[in-house]
């Protein structure tokens, strides 16, 4: 081989070597990612695809799915009279409980950021409820708010006030669940606390020099600076609100007492009067109590679509309110 020819082939070899190295790098990246990839595919991708397929079938869990086309969706939008009350209950929770959760978490975080003594104790006290398992916390609240024997109504009674029926009243059951939700805002509170503490001091000092009072500093310094965290809390709160299940399930069954039929303890889902029948509770009832998994899958697909849509809308409209430090706009 002549020297000229060798010169000509060298760049080709180099590019091949580069390409090989790139593939090797990709391989290594893939190898490191493979546990996640496998987990994602098996535990998320596959169930999602199967749910989408099953939503077009009648599936009782025991016999092979039967293709029914759009029947489940038609039943959901046209016939099933439980869907709309369940949607309304879920919307109520998102409209009332989620903003209250964010407000309380933020309020506590701001107060804690200003506390001078016992900060550690207060942080622990306010965070502690978040560690209580949801079932245990709900059982505790049902006990506390028992209309006949609960400590809350007993104290109210001593003050000459007849307490409400709490979990036993269709008007009070969702507010009772809201109280429970507010009590357990520890996680959100901690995130807010970190964000509030992180607000640059010089901004407050500048505002103070300009004559800003406490509320002006909150309105024009604290809130804009932590707005990305507020957005995060709202998005997570709304998604959790759409999936609200455990507390509603436990509260309804425990407060509802027991009634049996067919020799098995009956479920009291939605007690009282369907006021705690949230969308995921109805989905569970259809899928696992009525063996109507095809229809439950259709409900799950709608929930997925709504979750996407709501999150998209919040994030899109948030641009007017959320300020990212260092962002171009």
């Amino acid at each position: 081989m002549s020297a000229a020819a060798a010169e000509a082939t060298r760049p080709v070899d180099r590019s091949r070597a580069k390409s090989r190295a790139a593939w090797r790098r990709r391989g290594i990246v893939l190898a490191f990612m493979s546990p996640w990839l496998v987990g994602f595919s098996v535990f998320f991708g596959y169930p999602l695809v199967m749910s989408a397929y099953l939503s077009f079938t009648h599936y009782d869990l025991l016999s092979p799915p039967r293709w029914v086309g759009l029947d489940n969706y038609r039943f959901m939008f046209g016939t099933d009279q439980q869907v709309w009350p369940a949607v309304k209950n879920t919307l109520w929770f998102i409209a009332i409980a989620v903003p209250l959760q964010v407000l309380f978490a933020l309020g506590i975080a701001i107060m804690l950021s200003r506390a001078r003594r016992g900060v550690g104790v207060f942080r622990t006290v306010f965070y502690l409820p978040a560690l209580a398992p949801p079932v245990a916390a709900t059982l505790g609240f049902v006990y506390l708010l028992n209309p006949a024997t609960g400590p809350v109504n007993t104290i109210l009674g001593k003050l000459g006030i007849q307490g409400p029926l709490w979990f036993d009243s269709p008007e009070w059951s969702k507010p009772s669940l809201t109280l429970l939700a507010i009590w357990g805002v520890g996680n959100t509170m901690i995130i807010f606390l970190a964000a509030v503490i992180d607000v640059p001091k010089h901004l407050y000092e500048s505002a103070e020099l300009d004559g800003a009072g406490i509320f002006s500093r909150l309105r024009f310094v604290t809130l804009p600076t932590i707005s990305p965290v507020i957005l995060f809390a709202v998005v997570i709160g709304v998604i959790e609100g759409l999936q609200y299940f455990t507390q509603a399930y436990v509260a309804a069954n425990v407060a509802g007492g027991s009634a049996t039929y067919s020799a098995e303890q009956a479920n009291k889902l939605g007690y009282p009067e369907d006021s705690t029948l949230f969308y995921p509770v109805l989905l569970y009832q259809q899928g696992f109590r009525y063996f109507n998994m095809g229809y439950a899958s259709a409900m799950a697909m709608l929930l997925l679509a709504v979750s996407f849509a709501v999150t998209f809308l919040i994030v899109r409209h948030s641009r007017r309110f959320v300020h990212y430090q260092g962002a171009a706009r």
Partner: protein
Amino acid sequence: MRRVLLAFGVLLMLTVTGCGGSSKSASSTSSSTTKVQPANITIWTPFVDPELITFKKVVKDFETKNPGIHVKVIGGTNDDKIVAAIRGGNAPDVAQSFTSDNTGVFCPSGAWIDLGSYMQKDGVKDSIFPAAPRDYSKFEGKRCALPMLADAYGLYYNKTLLAKAGYKSPPKTISELTAMAKRLTQRDSSGKLKVVGFNPFPSWYENVPAHFGPSWGANWVDGGGNSNLNTPAWADQLRWQKSLIDWYGYDNLVRFNAGAGDEFSASNAFETGKVAMHMDGEWRVAFLKREHPELKYGTAPFPVADDKADLYGAGYTTGSIIGIPKTSKHKDQAWLLVKYLGTNPTALAELSNGIQNVPTTSASLKSPVLKPLPGFQTFLDVFGNKNTTTTPITRIGAANQETFQSFIAKYLSGSKKDLEGGLKNTDEQIDAMEKQAEAGQAP
């Protein structure tokens, strides 16, 4: 030599086919009363101690009578576990369910095998079961389960409280029940309910429409199998319930119930004397013996609507079902156990004595082994009554009952006023759910 080889070959073939034949024949007849191959089988039951102890004892008797078949008993199971196990291919050989409503799921799906051929082979006839258990253990003519122990419902009354109010016997009609309930009710100075004569609150303890309906002669479906709740019988039943709730005051009853104690505990409101008369199942007899032997009580059939006097003595019944999941590897042996637990009069009587549930064949109701506790005979009589009914088995499981209960709760609280309109709407919802469950089926 070739002839010898040929003869040997023919002999070998005959032997092989002969063996095959005899093996096939053994298999096909093994489900009859003749012997089956030894095997280890498993049964899942929802019973837990102390009932499980009796259950295991009866299964032990089965093992003694069927040498070679060893049965592993797993207690505390439920239908969710059975369904998951069938899906996973590791279900037990025999499964017992407390939820006869799920016959409508286990049968048409083939999850529990059809027992028809076994029953035919062994001469087990449907007619050995009274009508109600016969109905709730099959679906559209397919028998995939046998009934095994039942619950029957009636009236429990506190003799001490009744005597104090001047009553010597329990009510027989709804009018009598209502009048006595009002007289037996006690309130404190603030108007709070101390003792409730009869608590009509919906879904409290055993207050579900399925249990009340038979006293009004109310049916769930019409001749064509459609939901049939918009009838004068159901309307009368619900109007009575509402009028009594209104007499107590809805909120007063809610507060009373909230402090009344758990149904399945020693603080049960009837057991502690907070309720004078009470709709309940036969099992309460055993609970009372165990938890409050000091309580002086009596049992009677539940009162009937004034214009349905002929129904007095009847009531509602439902119960456990027992069957063979399709994944069982020892179906013949499993059938022997199912047959023993579901049809043997002595086994059923012993189960009844230990568990205090109603035995489910006509023969077992008359078994000399049966030793009912005081008060229990009422429920045996209710169960055996020709007018006693059960809820229909449907493809939608208990969804029909729960949809009805959902409307009832709203009507009785006063948030829905239109009774007939609500019943009609409930019928439409249930029919739509049935139709939805049948979608996509081959015509």
